[in-house]
Structures are given as structure tokens and as C-alpha cells.
């Protein structure tokens, strides 16, 4: 239901612990990070906000690398992630323009379903572990676990995501003309330490998905072309304003092939 609101109370925590407490206490708070999705929805009366928590001072925007493991705070702006290795870096760079990237956060993108949520694909391919808090306590899991638990909603605060730095990564996205900044389809591929290759896509199904059949074909010694052809069986193409299901089905193998070639699989 669409409803408008008046003046929502906004708290501004100065630490992670304060932020968790502020978001999870009743009435549950809506999280405001970069605001690139929430503020226009609020302006247009598409979202009701009783209480909000702004993360700008909560110090959960750090990016660190230690012992081969990368940790990215949920409030890190996309611009700060754009220089990271593939697939996270190129995917972050592919979202929005410079002004949007400077403001939008990696956590906000992950919390937003299609046609946003671009980073869900790279993080699935990386096997990234997300850390979040809700009124039931602290949780960890991958992107699919976070979504299955209900994803972003009042009372839930995504804190950070961590992943092993892979041997190599790649990211390819379907490019559109300049008036359309949303990405219709993208493929991320990762070669982990030891040689295992994992592949994930956004835009091939209503939510980001692993392309496990294609991964198995590769692991069994199949060619890139074989793996690319097999990827369609992992997809659930759909129609929306960005692309038709038929088009998605047609281009997915092309982009899987490009991602694997870029990876040097």
C-alpha cells in the first residue's frame, strides 16, 4: 500500500553497536545510508518511514584486506569499491554515474532487489559471507541466506561482507544506450585458490543466481563454449522493462562465455 508520512525521527549513531541498537529497537527503524533509493521513494510517498537511522557516522564504511581476506563495510560508497579487483570493482564501477557512485553504498545495493542489487552476483560468485543484525540477534550467511531471511526491511541492518581474495575474477555486463543506466544482465566469474571456478549472474533470473551447471561442465573438463551453452539451464529468464525473457535467454551464454574468457578459464 502506498502511504505518505510526515516527519520521521532520524537517529545518527556513531558506532556499529549504536547502529544495531538503534535499528533493532521498536518501532523498528528504516536504514538510511546513501539515500539514493530511499529518499526518492520517500519524496514520492512510496514508502512509509516511522523512524530512520542514518549510517553516515556509524563507522561501518571501512574496506580492509587481511590474510587474503577482504572485508567491505556496508556503508562503503560504490566509488570506494570501484577500484577493487574483479568482480566487485568493475561491478561497482558499472553502477550509476560518478555522482550516484559517490553517494550510493555497497550495502544499499545488496539490499535492493532487481533491477538493482547488481553486487549480489559478484558476491555469490565469490562465496562472500554477509554479516547482519536483526531483532533476533547477529547473523551470517551468503547473499542467498540474507535474501531468504527476508532481506532488507525495518529492523534489519546489513553490517559488512567478507570474502577470500580469489586468484582471478571477471565481470561482464550487458551495455545499454546512455539513457538507461540499469543493467539488464551481468555475469561474474571467479577462479578460487586451487582452481575451482564459480559463476553467477544478475538479470538471468528474478534474483541473482549461481550458474552451477556451467560450473560443473567446466570442472568436468568442458570447454568455455560448453559451459556457456549449459548456463541457460540454470537461468529463469523473465520479462521486464529492461529486456525480454527471450533476449535474456539468448544473451546469457554469450556473456558467460565472455566472462570465462576474461577469467582465462
Amino acid at each position, binding site marked *: 500500500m502506498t502511504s505518505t508520512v510526515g516527519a520521521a525521527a532520524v537517529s545518527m549513531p556513531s558506532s556499529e553497536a549504536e547502529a544495531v541498537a538503534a535499528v533493532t529497537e521498536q518501532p523498528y527503524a528504516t536504514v538510511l545510508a546513501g539515500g539514493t533509493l530511499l529518499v526518492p521513494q520517500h519524496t514520492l510517498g512510496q514508502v512509509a518511514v516511522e523512524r530512520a537511522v542514518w549510517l553516515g557516522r556509524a563507522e561501518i564504511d571501512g574496506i580492509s584486506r587481511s590474510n587474503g581476506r577482504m572485508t567491505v563495510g556496508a556503508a562503503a560508497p560504490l566509488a570506494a569499491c570501484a577500484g577493487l579487483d574483479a568482480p566487485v570493482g568493475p561491478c561497482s564501477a558499472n553502477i550509476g554515474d*560518478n*555522482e550516484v557512485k559517490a553517494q550510493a553504498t555497497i550495502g544499499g545495493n545488496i539490499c535492493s532487489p532487481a533491477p538493482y542489487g547488481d553486487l549480489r552476483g559478484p558476491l555469490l560468485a565469490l562465496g562472500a559471507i554477509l554479516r547482519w543484525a536483526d531483532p533476533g540477534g547477529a547473523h551470517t550467511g551468503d547473499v542467498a541466506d540474507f535474501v531468504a531471511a527476508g532481506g532488507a526491511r525495518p529492523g534489519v541492518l546489513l553490517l559488512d561482507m567478507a570474502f577470500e581474495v580469489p586468484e582471478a575474477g571477471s565481470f561482464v555486463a550487458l551495455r545499454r544506450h546512455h539513457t538507461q543506466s540499469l543493467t539488464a544482465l551481468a555475469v561474474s566469474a571467479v577462479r578460487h585458490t586451487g582452481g575451482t571456478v564459480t559463476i553467477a549472474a544478475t538479470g538471468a533470473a528474478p534474483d541473482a543466481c549461481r550458474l552451477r551447471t556451467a560450473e560443473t561442465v567446466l570442472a568436468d573438463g568442458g570447454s568455455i563454449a560448453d559451459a556457456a551453452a549449459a548456463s541457460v539451464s540454470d537461468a529463469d529468464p523473465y520479462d521486464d522493462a529492461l529486456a525480454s525473457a527471450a533476449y535474456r535467454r539468448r544473451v546469457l551464454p554469450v556473456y558467460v562465455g565472455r566472462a570465462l574468457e576474461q577469467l582465462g578459464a
Partner: protein
Amino acid sequence: MELTVNSVSRTVRSAPLTSLLTVLREELDITSPKAGCESGGCGACTVLVDGQPRRSCLTALCTLDGSEVVTVEGLGTPEDLSRVQQAFIHHYAAQCGFCSDGMVVAATAYINGGGSDDAGAIREALAGHFCRCTGYVKILEAVAAAARGDELDTGTTASSANNTYVKISEGGQT
């Protein structure tokens, strides 16, 4: 909440989640930031926040306490236009003008940040700013001219085609 807008301290009373665009236009009567798409997609509402270009339609008021906001009204005056404003006039980089304020602000941030006249870099800096009239060529030329430090005469119009100059007062076309 206290804001400095175009070098003037202002106390604003809008609700915390109100967009900066709404605050500027509705509460402070500063109308150069345009309400285009109101979802961050067109760039017409761009202003400088602490020197950085920001989409005012995406920016909640509560995130700005103590910030310095600059709009086109703060860049120059009719008697003393900023360099980018002069370049937009000299290169005739506007038709309907709806996108111009955001373009001028973004270009100002680009040049203040040391941006050059490199066409690719200018395109990247202005990406996300949509113009439905000019075809962008004259806008890019204007920003490049301002970045180079070209001599800019707002009484004449530069030609894209052969870089000749035509006196506006003579009504000439190139």
C-alpha cells in the same frame, strides 16, 4: 538544522528525510536545481555539497547538518558570471536550459578538481546529466574551453563547425 547555502547561513525547518532539492526549491526559494526525474537519473538537480557534486533529489536533509551547499545562484552573478557560465554562453551550450544548472555545477566541480579539456574525461564527469536539446556537442565544447582557460566573450558565439566567431548583435548564423 543549519546549512550554509551560497555563503549565507540558513536555518531550515523541513522534516529530516526531506530531499535537499525540496528544501532548496520549496523552503528557500532557490530554483536553479530543477526537479526533473526526482530519482537521481537526470542530473538536473545537481548542487555542490562541501565542494562535491551531489544529486539534491537523492540527498536527505538530515545528512547535511553544517554542510556548505552551492547552487548556480552562488557561482556567479549576472554582472560577474563564473568562468563556466561564461563558457556556456560563449559556446551557446543551452537551448531550453532545464539541464543547464546541473551541467554548470557538475562542470564547475570537474574544473575545480583539476579537470582538463580531455573530451573523454569531460564526458565521464558529466555522465548522468541528460540534455534533450543540444546533442551535447556545445556543452562539451564549453566545458573544454573553460578547462583550457580560453578567452571567453559572452557577446559573441563560438562556432562548433569552424571555430569562427559571430557577433550576436549582428544576428549572424554560422
